[in-house]
């Protein structure tokens, strides 16, 4: 089932297509997510990265095969098909989700946001408190009044409070100040020690730091799969796929380079 790769696979996606309001946003996407480390999902703006994530989770109308190998004790036997299941069932199998734009519940307090997210019998409150001391200090504050960075921490904490078998993380550093970007990356690196991560990220420095593998999407299809660092070293490919020079990646996100498309 997995693509001849020697490492084990946690999730396979085959021929995924997805629609939003009748509009085709993902054409035909196939890739594997290895069962360790961070895998980056890259591409210019609007190529369908977020929609791919949402399609996997069933948050938008989708078709295709999505198989999860994290279920059960043996971990890697036959796999479970996710593409027919409803979102909450998919998540309950141990897939954590950190959405684009954080999507914290602004009228709930920090503590309520976290309490709502607690799925496990023994949620990892201490782990989260250690990673995000800033949040623990303000449990009664409404999430809507937090800073962008704090909201992102909260969004991450919601996913990390449960013991997941896979994390889907969508643009966690979007719109954040450079110093906060570092903190978010630290938290992700810490999390990735124990759980595989599929990461959508425009900030190539973060990708370089965290990601082992890279999958590039263009026009709703996968156009490249390989080692993340090899990709970022290759000027030609980064310009072609991401619309930026790898060297400029830190300061300049791929958004601004997308005009050539």
């Amino acid at each position, binding site marked *: 089932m997995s693509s001849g790769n020697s490492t084990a696979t946690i999730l396979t996606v085959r021929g995924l297509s997805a629609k939003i309001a009748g509009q085709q946003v993902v054409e035909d996407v196939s890739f594997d997510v290895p069962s360790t480390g961070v895998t980056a999902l890259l591409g210019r703006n609007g190529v369908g990265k977020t929609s791919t994530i949402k399609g996997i989770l069933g948050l938008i109308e989708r078709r295709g095969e999505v198989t999860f190998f994290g279920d059960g004790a043996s971990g890697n036997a036959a796999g479970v098909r996710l593409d027919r299941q409803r979102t*909450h069932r998919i998540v309950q199998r141990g897939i954590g989700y950190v959405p684009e734009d954080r999507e914290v*519940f602004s009228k709930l307090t920090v503590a309520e946001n976290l309490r709502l997210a607690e799925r496990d019998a023994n949620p990892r409150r201490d782990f989260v408190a250690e990673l995000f001391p800033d949040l623990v200090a303000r449990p009664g504050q409404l999430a809507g009044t937090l800073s962008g960075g704090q909201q992102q921490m909260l969004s991450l904490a919601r996913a990390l409070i449960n013991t997941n078998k896979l994390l889907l993380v969508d643009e966690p550093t979007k719109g954040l100040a450079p110093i906060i970007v570092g903190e978010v990356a630290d938290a992700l690196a810490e999390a990735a020690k124990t759980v595989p991560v599929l990461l959508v990220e425009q900030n190539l420095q973060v990708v370089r730091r965290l990601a082992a593998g890279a999958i590039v999407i263009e026009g709703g299809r996968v156009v490249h799969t390989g080692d993340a660092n090899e990709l970022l070293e290759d000027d030609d490919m980064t310009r072609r796929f991401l619309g930026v020079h790898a060297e400029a990646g830190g300061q300049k996100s791929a958004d601004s380079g997308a005009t050539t498309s």
Partner: protein
Amino acid sequence: MSTVILLLITGLGLGALYFLIASGLSLIYGLMGVLNFAHGSFLTLGAYIGWEVARVLGADNWAVFIASVLVGAAVGAAFAAATEFFLIRKLYERHIEQVLVTVGLALASVALFDGIWGTDPIYVTGPSWLGGTTEILGASIPNNRFILILASVLVLLGIVAFLKYTRYGLIIRAGVENRSMVTALGIDVRRAFTVVFAIGGAAAGVGGVLASSYYGYVSSGIGGSLLIFAFIVTVIGGLGSLSGAAIAAALVAVLQQFANFYLGGTGDFVVVLLLAVVLLVRPSGLLGSKA
């Protein structure tokens, strides 16, 4: 002065009635995007059953009155939960069809009530105190207004406590804000749908028993006629906002009473005008989320 007091308290009593319907409408719309035309029928059924309880127990004392309010609430909740479970759920995310189904249910249920209890109004009596009046600053206030206000305050506090201190309440509050993110946390938000319907139905059932005391009779049309004003209240308060519904209910009803008295019976017009103005100036309502 005494007139002003009378109008004010009577208005608040009517507002309490509006709130008992609007609270459920607003929560249901906020969480599910369903505009529930059958909500008036929940109230009407509560009123009829409340009357049946009083009839069977045969005494016009307080214990019977409270029992009929509680039974009315239970019946309203059961009817509403069944509506969600058997009709609304099948049409998940298809909002227009969901509205249509509630329209059909409203038509069918009112006709059924006519068939069971007849088309003539049934006059109700309660504890004798309810039919009397109390003197406040020179105004003779019908006592049932106080009960209405008290009941709706209790219902408001009950719903607020439920939303604040229970897991379902947490899910409902989060779902009103962003339903798909709730499912993305691994929560089956649909189970909360049945719960909000049941809460809304219970409040409407209480409203039904109290409405029959307010008007002095039960008829198959009482739910429907109150429903239109409850819609207006819900929209003015901001769809999905419980406190918005409470404020708007009081505002609309008091305004209505004053306009009826001082502006030659134009209460309904003033309310419609208020709705038009609010929607044009602030389309999301007084406390609506998307400003």
